[in-house]
């Protein structure tokens, strides 16, 4: 088994963990962590696939991933602001509570 194959499988599993957390996580902060994991998994997949031929990986996916890391962190900051406002308006930071209003 090659190095790239190991990381491709790890990336698939991390993406799976991210999807699971995004769907099942009750707390919104947990969902945010899951989205970040999902992103990291995709980054790992891109670079691991680009490095399959051995040697330094393709620079194009690397540049994409650097852009992606910065976008992910700004997304996280925005989502945290959204979460804070939501919590101030509703007193809830979770998705799995019953809506009493309906």
């Amino acid at each position, binding site marked *: 088994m090659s190095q790239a194959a190991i990381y491709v499988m790890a990336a698939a599993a991390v993406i799976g963990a991210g999807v699971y957390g995004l769907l099942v996580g009750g707390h919104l902060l947990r969902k945010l962590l899951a989205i970040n994991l999902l992103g990291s998994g995709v980054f790992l997949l891109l670079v691991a696939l680009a490095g399959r031929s051995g040697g330094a990986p393709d620079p194009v996916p690397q540049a994409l991933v650097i852009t992606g890391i910065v976008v992910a962190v700004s997304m996280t900051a925005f989502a945290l602001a959204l979460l804070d406002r939501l*919590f*101030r*308006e*509703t*007193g809830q930071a979770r998705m799995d509570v019953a809506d009493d209003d309906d």
Partner: protein
Amino acid sequence: MSILQVAATILLVLGGFFYFAGTVGLLRFPDVHSRLHALTKADNLGLGLVCLAMALLGGSWRGAAMLLVIWLLGLLAATVSCHLVAQAALEPAAAGDGGSGGEAIAPMGRSYGGADAVTEASAEEADATRRRTGAWPDGSIAEQPAPRRSADTSSGASPADPPTPRGDP
């Protein structure tokens, strides 16, 4: 193998030993302060030895200077982090947090005499530490029932403005 490589190997083995010692301390010591004590000392010595070994192997003065900077910064960061985490663990807020200070026995301290293991602390401090560890039973801090507000006012360090709960519409 040249003499430099032999020396580097010996240094690496020594460094590995100290890292291992730090991990053992982290796992086996009974409370947060003795764990921190083991961790910061052993690990930074380990890092220093690894840096020295890599400087020998790298064979350039520039690389060696870089490694020295890394080690010194590591010392600084570990000192500050250790101090802050230790202080945070001592915060009286912790006892108020759990709302059960002094009632529970520390789960990790069961097989040790708390005061024995914390050799550098006085018996009083060790007691307080055990109580505090007990205030955070195994599990998550999220499960603690006591409100944050009482902890603040009792800590004495909070300024004049009384904290108001947020999130009320």
